[in-house]
């Protein structure tokens, strides 16, 4: 075996279809750079935050699209702007706070300052200094501040969620996610104002796609997440569906537990298997909400940047922020709705103990992603398998399939031209 075979230097999809995924898709720094360009910086709407994070004019939040630092800000007229956090002068990432309120953005280096829309308002010593009645130095006479705004992104808002793109030719957000996914998006963000409950943040040493795949993989929850099984929450016979958009990039895993919340079998403090009971059943004190219209859990992946979570009463967005081929930050924003009672808020907070970096079920996911990446790195000529449910790509009415992963890589290959 020559060196090329152990650490492939040029990437060819030498597999029969996307039921086999070469490890180099997760380990090659060049592939990762191309992903940033083709998936995060062009052709896609990326998640930036919730309107509820910046309720007042002048409120801002610093976040990222791919690896590019951006600021989401509520400008005058109640518009939401997303601007790139790179000064037009010397390129400095001038905004250092995570969030705040301001009436302008000023780069500390040379005090260039911008309005909340990102327009350059002023440049110190633009005309130079006056000495002996004469102007000396300063910017060239034809320097036009209007030509030196911050990079302004296109913004899409829907149901209180904010997406942005550097790609000025991008299709509408609605066309981007497609009508089937839009249905589930609107179910969760149905126009009620959101209330911010807070954040959980973790750094996961694995390729960012593994998190997309984790939420496109209904095979693992009943096997990896012993907690689910122990307390009778996971049942293979739950009614469930897997759905994708027409490009197979986005997906929803939709499941419905019996008559949720009503009987003991489904609110589930007693396990069908080991008769384990929670000492405190409030972790799973589920109350059916009218907006569910049936499903008790809908997990959506909006490629490439965000996961939208409804797990019974716990709702959150999970933002994927890649930083290299082998690591990403995973930022959970938990929220509620304006008409939640204090009891409902408590319930959402208690159920949040299942999720996030310390969650009874989600802690497992971060760990397996780390160890998958370790396996890929030691054997980059090898490939992963996603053959559950066969080779085809399509929606299903059961959970025993890896079709969503095959679909994602079908789309990935087109975009990456691989």
């Amino acid at each position: 075996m020559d060196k090329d075979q152990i650490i492939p230097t040029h990437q060819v999809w030498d597999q029969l279809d996307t039921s086999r995924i070469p490890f180099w898709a997760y380990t090659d720094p060049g592939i990762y750079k191309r992903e940033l360009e083709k998936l995060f910086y062009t052709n896609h709407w990326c998640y930036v935050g919730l309107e509820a994070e910046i309720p007042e004019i002048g409120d801002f939040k610093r976040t990222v699209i791919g690896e590019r630092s951006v600021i989401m800000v509520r400008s005058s007229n109640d518009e939401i702007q997303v601007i790139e956090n790179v000064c037009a002068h010397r390129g400095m990432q001038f905004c250092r706070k995570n969030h705040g309120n301001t009436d302008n953005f000023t780069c500390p280096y040379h005090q260039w300052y911008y309005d909340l829309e990102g327009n350059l308002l002023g440049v110190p010593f633009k005309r130079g200094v006056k000495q002996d009645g004469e102007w000396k130095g300063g910017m060239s006479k034809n320097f036009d501040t209007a030509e030196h705004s911050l990079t302004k992104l296109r913004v899409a808002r829907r149901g209180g969620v904010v997406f942005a793109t550097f790609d000025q030719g991008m299709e509408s957000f609605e066309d981007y996610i497609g009508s089937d996914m839009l249905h589930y998006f609107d179910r969760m963000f149905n126009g009620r104002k959101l209330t911010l409950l807070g954040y959980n943040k973790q750094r996961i040493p694995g390729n960012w796609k593994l998190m997309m795949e984790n939420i496109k993989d209904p095979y693992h929850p009943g096997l990896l997440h012993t907690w689910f099984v122990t307390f009778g929450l996971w049942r293979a016979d739950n009614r469930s569906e897997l759905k994708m958009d027409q490009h197979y990039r986005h997906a929803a895993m939709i499941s419905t537990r019996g008559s949720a919340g009503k009987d003991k079998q489904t609110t589930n403090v007693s396990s069908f298997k080991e008769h384990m009971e929670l000492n405190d059943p409030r972790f799973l004190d589920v109350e059916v909400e009218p907006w569910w219209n049936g499903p008790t859990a809908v997990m959506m992946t909006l490629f490439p940047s965000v996961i939208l979570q409804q797990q019974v009463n716990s709702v959150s967005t999970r933002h994927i922020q890649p930083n290299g081929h082998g690591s990403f930050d995973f930022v959970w924003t938990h929220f509620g709705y304006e008409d939640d009672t204090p009891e409902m808020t408590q319930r959402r907070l208690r159920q949040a103990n299942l999720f996030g970096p310390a969650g009874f079920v989600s802690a497992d996911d971060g760990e397996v992603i780390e160890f998958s990446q370790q396996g890929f790195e030691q054997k980059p000529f090898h490939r992963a398998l996603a053959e559950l449910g066969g080779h085809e790509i399509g929606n299903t009415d059961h959970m025993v399939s890896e079709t969503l992963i095959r679909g994602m890589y079908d789309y990935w290959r087109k975009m990456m031209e691989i």
Partner: protein
Amino acid sequence: MTTDLFLQLNNFYQDNAAAIDQERWDDWMETFTDDCIYRIQSRENFDRNLPMAALSMEGMGMLKDRIYGITETIFHDPYHQTHVVSAPRVISIEGEVIHAEANYAVFRTKNDGIAQIFNVGRYIDQIQTSDTGFKLKSRICVFDNDMILNSLIYPI
């Protein structure tokens, strides 16, 4: 506060940390009251008055469920913790309750690895005193890390 009481309080902090480091979970739970609050929360959420926490337990039942989770159900890389806990800073004493804080640093060591700084922050505590000793009525671990290093399994 008398020197005796302070020494007793200091021991209480060190005993609690030793129970975690030595994975003596029953002993750790013993340091809490039945109606306790135990929370591990980022400084960002805490400072902004956002209620979300990495972990938020109310009462002994939830502590027991968490211990069951970490010992029986959650899959995770094995690791050891070592705490370094400062002397407590007594804020106030209200009747039988001491309000105190202490800084902590938690080092994590995995198999094949070297010790990493895993979590750094401050305990914000309410300690119930009685003839039989001290118990935590409330402990909020406010951590400085903006990012948790992948997963947080054991108590802090």
